[in-house]
């Protein structure tokens, strides 16, 4: 089975908010009407998943990758299996408190640090997304902003704007704040170039 909107197959591994930011225009009506297909799976465009466990491993892999960027992977790897289960079950059953009780540890700067090492983000452009190492503070200890991130990612291109969670955040938003408050459950910021 696969889903389609406006001729475009929906990638199941992207958060639904990202799909909506990528595919819905200002004139599209909500609720979002999508088409369900039962044949002709678009193999070249959508990665096939054959079990719920695979979706779980995909989600956990994203969390771990984000933790590698934020804390050199030390928080996720020090967690027990039951913590990982709690994250997944909390997400799956929409139990915010259950999820957040564990996720909080991943979302804090570790030890005596005030900032993450790097900001986990994916910036969607064209058919895919870009990732790069971007620190939340500059070498002279200034808080970096969304503007700084976009300049590092697209040097020389000043007019780029991004959308996340259906809105365009102000360019002067500090990256550390953005990462702590607007990351998706997979611990990544998902920014769509508009």
């Amino acid at each position, binding site marked *: 089975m696969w889903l389609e909107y406006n001729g475009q197959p929906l990638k199941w591994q992207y958060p639904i908010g990202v799909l909506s930011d990528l595919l819905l225009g200002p004139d599209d009506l909500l609720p979002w009407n999508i088409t369900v297909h039962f044949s002709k799976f678009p193999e070249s465009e959508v990665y096939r998943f054959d079990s719920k466990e695979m979706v779980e491993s995909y989600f956990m892999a994203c969390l771990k990758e984000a933790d590698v960027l934020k804390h050199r992977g030390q928080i996720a790897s020090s967690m027990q299996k039951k913590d990982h289960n709690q994250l997944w079950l909390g997400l799956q059953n929409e139990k915010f408190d259950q999820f957040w009780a564990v996720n909080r540890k991943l979302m804090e700067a570790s030890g005596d640090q005030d900032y993450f090492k790097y900001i986990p983000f994916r910036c969607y452009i064209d058919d*895919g997304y870009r990732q790069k190492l971007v620190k939340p503070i500059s070498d002279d200890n200034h808080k970096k902003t969304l503007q700084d991130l976009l300049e590092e990612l697209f040097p020389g291109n000043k007019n780029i704007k991004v959308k996340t969670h259906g809105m365009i955040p102000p360019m002067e938003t500090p990256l550390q704040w953005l990462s702590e408050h607007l990351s998706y459950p997979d611990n990544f910021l998902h920014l769509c170039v508009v």
Partner: protein
Amino acid sequence: MSEETQETVVQEATDSLQSMNIRTEPVDSSDPEHTKQKVDILLKPTGNAPIMKKKKWTVDSDKKIGWIIEFVKKYLKLEPNEKLFLYVNQTFAPSPDQVVKNLYDCYSTEGKLVLHYCKTQAWG
């Protein structure tokens, strides 16, 4: 496996690589065009995975992880239903639709992206 069959395996993998448009010769790093578009990856076995005679490969930076998984499976002559998992930093499994460039930009060390492969899930 005898040396002769090993050679055949390598040759076949090389042939299939060429049919997939991948460079099999060492890349001259002084050529700016190549340093811009290709990246070096190092494939290391873990667990019970067989070793690859050639570990260091140069691939197009826009290739996806799914493509590398298929390539390693072919090189190791795994059955189509056998699984192969790739890991970055011995920590997380990158998504099959992730492009090598992103991983190289974030996780390469000393100019190489190290990818561990195994036939069963490691590191969760």
